[in-house]
């Protein structure tokens, strides 16, 4: 159109509106394409992580959620920084995600064909998946032997064909945590030791809206955290979620266990309350007790400064005093291009002095090596200095494999199905038996098991 509208023989300016617009469009296209091409070419490809052409140092990648834990990251970074000082030819790069979606992202990388790390810190179910499902890990038992450490029973879950594939760096174990002020004020001189005592204590200490007896997460919106607590309950009633390859979600023992859990939730007066609201109440000294993992006291000191000095613990108030201990540890990936350096980093992180340092700084309750006190005598004194630690000594800890059988790898899947169905029992729209039967049926279908 413009060509036809211009009179013949008219002077043509070298810079026209059209050329300006054309140039701008081309520049915009280049501006968008350039970063896209750069993103395709860069990133955490294994060759880039390992060649380190620009420096002579060996580049190691440590994958962990700890870099996103504000109360814990400083101690971990210090340990790793000291490793780099002691090993000047090795440079450690941190990578990872917040704990809430850590497992998902690691598994996503694994499914895509490559986990972009040399050493991976794992929660127990992720460790089981990487070791047993994907066969991605190197044996590490020789490291514990060289350090003279005896891995505790929680490590048994990560032993395949007699070889240990994960070395624990922190163990978080469940127990009954309570505020001694509230118990004393309510007329209780000691924490409960039986389910009936626990139910009675919960009822008597609940004075809504100012005070509540027990914190139990019970909404499907927080299904993962709900399951984290709930998974313990069958242990007090002789039940398990799976026995080997046999799913036993709706066993009579589990029905009894979960009925007790529902009764506790209702007695606490917090049925249907969101996890965020429950946490706010707990840190605001309005909940007398909760069944929780005792770890990260460094975080609790910041979040609940009045609660922390009054925090005490007791074993689970049910027969057998069993509870789950979740071992988090490091694995070394077979795909690492620098296995020797990866072994060195892993060894450094479980060196008794370093493990003790992190435990002390971050307030972790348990060091998962049976003879640790012999290696670091100060650990015994440290344990005794934490008044909230007493419950651990009386609890009989079991691993995830003891309650989930051969389905540890399906921890999240089973947890989601069980937790979302049990919420119906809390709201009264189904019985506990119906809820567990529904979860059993759905789990069998999801895991392709014969019904």
């Amino acid at each position: 159109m413009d060509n036809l509208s211009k009179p013949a023989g008219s002077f043509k300016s070298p810079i026209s509106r059209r050329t300006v617009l054309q140039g701008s469009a081309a520049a915009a296209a280049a501006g968008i394409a350039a970063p896209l091409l750069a993103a395709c070419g860069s990133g955490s490809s294994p060759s880039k992580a390992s060649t380190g052409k620009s420096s002579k140092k060996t580049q190691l990648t440590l994958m962990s959620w700890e870099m996103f834990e504000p109360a814990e990251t400083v101690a971990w970074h210090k340990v790793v920084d000291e490793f780099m000082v002691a090993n000047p030819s090795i440079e450690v790069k941190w990578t990872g995600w917040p704990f809430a979606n850590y497992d998902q992202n690691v598994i996503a990388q694994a499914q895509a064909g490559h986990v972009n790390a040399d050493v991976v810190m794992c929660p127990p179910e992720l460790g089981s998946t990487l070791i047993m499902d994907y066969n991605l890990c190197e044996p590490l038992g020789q490291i514990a032997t060289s350090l003279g450490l005896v891995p505790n029973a929680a490590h048994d879950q990560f032993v395949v064909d007699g070889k240990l594939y994960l070395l624990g760096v922190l163990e978080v174990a469940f127990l009954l945590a309570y505020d001694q002020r509230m118990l004393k004020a309510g007329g209780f001189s000691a924490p409960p030791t039986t389910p009936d005592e626990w139910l009675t204590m919960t009822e008597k200490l609940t004075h809504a809206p100012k005070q509540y007896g027990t914190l139990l997460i019970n909404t499907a919106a927080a299904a993962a955290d709900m399951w984290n607590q709930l998974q313990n309950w069958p242990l007090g009633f002789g039940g398990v979620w799976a026995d080997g390859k046999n799913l036993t979600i709706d066993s009579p023992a589990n029905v009894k266990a979960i009925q007790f859990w529902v009764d506790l939730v209702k007695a606490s007066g917090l049925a249907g309350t969101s996890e965020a609201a429950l946490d706010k109440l707990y840190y605001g000294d309005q909940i007398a007790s909760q069944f929780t993992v005792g770890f990260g006291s460094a975080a609790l000191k910041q979040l609940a400064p009045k609660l922390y000095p009054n925090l005490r613990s007791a074993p689970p108030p049910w027969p057998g005093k069993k509870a789950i201990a979740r071992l988090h540890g490091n694995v070394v990936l077979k795909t690492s291009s620098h296995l020797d350096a990866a072994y060195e980093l892993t060894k450094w992180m479980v060196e008794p002095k370093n493990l003790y340092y992190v435990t002390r700084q971050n307030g972790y309750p348990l060091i998962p090596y049976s003879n640790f006190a012999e290696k670091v005598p100060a650990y015994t004194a440290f344990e005794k200095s934490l008044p909230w630690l007493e419950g651990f000594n009386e609890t009989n800890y079991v691993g995830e494999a003891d309650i989930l059988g051969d389905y540890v790898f399906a921890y999240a899947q089973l947890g989601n199905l069980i937790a979302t169905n049990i919420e119906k029992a809390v709201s009264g729209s189904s019985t506990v038996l119906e809820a567990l039967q529904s979860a059993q049926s759905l789990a069998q279908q999801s895991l392709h098991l014969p019904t």
Partner: protein
Amino acid sequence: MNAVLDLARGAVTRRARKPRQAPLPYALLAPIVVFECLFVVYPIIRGILLSFHETNFGVTKFVGLAQYRQMLHDPIFWSSVQTTFEFTFAMTAVWLSLGLAVALLMNWSFAGRGFVRAILAIPWAVPDIPVVLTFTIMLDPNFGILNRFASFIPGVHHQIQWLSAPNLAFIAIIIMVGWKGFPFFSLILLSSLQSIPDDLYEAAKVDGAGPLRRFRSITLPALYPTLGLLGVLAFIFSFQQFSLIYLSTGGGPGTDTSTLAVTIYNQAFEFFNYNYASAVAVVGLLLAAAGTVLYIILQRRVARARRLEGVSAGL
């Protein structure tokens, strides 16, 4: 012969005179086309391919329709299809009716109308996370303001669990998503309302038509095209709704609020069944497309029927 040559010469000249397409429009479109291809079309194609495979640590095996066969026997999948369609139809009705009601209110002239119009757009502007947090607190059985008011109702003795009881959780989700999205629909309907000539209303008043008759005979027919378009958009928006549902109920209790979007997320990122999740996503895409096409066909048939009715009335 000369005539033939003249004809051919003329054709060549005409072809030579055909104006060249300016490259500028294509250049301006290029970035968005590239973006859509890279971040929309390519992932869809990859997802479809993934649904025909089984992947395990980078080793991919073609399994044909195995994922789809699994889906046919998955009660969670069928439950989520049912929930999705129930939710979609409910949201479409809520958004269109609430949007129309608010648009009609805003079409009146009153003092402070501009300010009211501005604050009515706030729900649309608020991000999803604060919306979920606010509604979760309001609906809390123990502290929520809704239960405070409900306790004044005679006969209501227990703390209503809005997000944990099956039917109530579904209603709560509809209220929350409806509140979040209605401004979009009301603003578009408002602009359509304002394009209806006042003369029609005045003429109708003169003829003795009351407000309801004017609404039925003038307003609604004028809004049909807009309502049709908004219906399609409401269907699509509600079909793909994820964050508000997942963050408030997690798809629970049980699977009572698990839509296809929630199921896809759970399968992929909670259960790590990426291939199966892709298959569910493909089926979701087909269902959404089929629903949209069906809706458009129905809407056109209704419009055609109305045109014929108008013609015959004129005759």
